[in-house]
């Protein structure tokens, strides 16, 4: 079985791997920021650091991919008509892509400072 041909396994595995990254990131995040008050300046300084910047970007990316697989599963389970399915999936994918691009823009700008 090749990776390309295994669409079911691929989504299943991706969902689990992204979940793992999300959990690890949140634990590290809580460890780094726990007990501190986040101010605009401290947050900006943190996000400007390349490691934090990339970790945060990966987190948002993992979250969006995870949401995409979950949302697509719900649509496959409950929505029978193919046309409604396409419309819902396109709207969902567009929404997630916009959020992804927006995050990318914010983090790139923050990282360049």
């Amino acid at each position, binding site marked *: *079985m*090749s990776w390309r041909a*295994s*669409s*079911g*396994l691929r989504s*299943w595995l991706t969902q689990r791997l992204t979940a793992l990254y999300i959990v690890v990131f949140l634990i590290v995040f809580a460890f780094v920021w726990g007990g501190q008050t986040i101010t605009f300046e401290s947050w900006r300084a943190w996000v400007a650091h390349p490691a934090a910047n990339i970790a945060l970007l990966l987190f948002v990316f993992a979250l969006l991919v995870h949401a995409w697989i979950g949302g697509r599963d719900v649509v496959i*389970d409950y929505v029978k008509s193919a046309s409604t399915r396409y419309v819902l999936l396109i709207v969902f994918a567009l929404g997630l892509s916009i959020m992804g691009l927006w995050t990318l823009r914010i983090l790139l700008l923050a990282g360049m400072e």
Partner: protein
Amino acid sequence: MRFLIHRYNPEVDKKPRMQEYTVEGFASGAMLLDALFRIKEEDDSLSFRRSCGEGVCGSDAMNINGRNGLACITPLKSLKEPIEVRPVPGLPIIRDLVVDMRQFYHQYRSVKPWLTVHDPEPETEYLQTPEQRDQLDGLYECILCGACSTACPSFWWNPDKFRGPAALLQSWRFLADSRDQATAERLEELEGAYRLFRCHSIMNCMDVCPKGLNPTKAIGNIKKMMLKHLV
């Protein structure tokens, strides 16, 4: 004891209804199936399937007080009154408590539930070590009553595409068999978004299985095996 029994005869009834029956005087160990027999003595128009009456044949799976089970091994004492008996959910109703199991059997057949061997057959018998034989425990005992698949929302929504817990348990029964040589073909056949991966591990199947089997675990094992075959 009060019973509410699902009644539907498509030749006469426009829609299903629940009919009330009261039957008294059961022996202490009486099962729900005994009560259904008594009701049938009173009203012989009631239809239900049953055969062995001891939890082996799997004919009398039904929805008992909202939970799938076998009428023949469900003690009346364990049930709250009025006892509501309906056909198992998700399959077309033929009459009263009798459902059309064709979709269920179709999915079962699709996993090719038999040993496939490509090598020439041995002179005497196929040998297995006791450990290899142990792998089949908890898998071969399935009686195909359909309680698990008809308790599974993924099977309700996609009974034509999702194999369902019963068929997937059997698929794993042959994947786990040291004598079977069709592993790659079996895994290949289960690929895609529907056949295996509609399972979201909510475990209704293992919750209702009257034989105490665990299809969710079997499905997890199939996924793990797929992963191994990928890398």
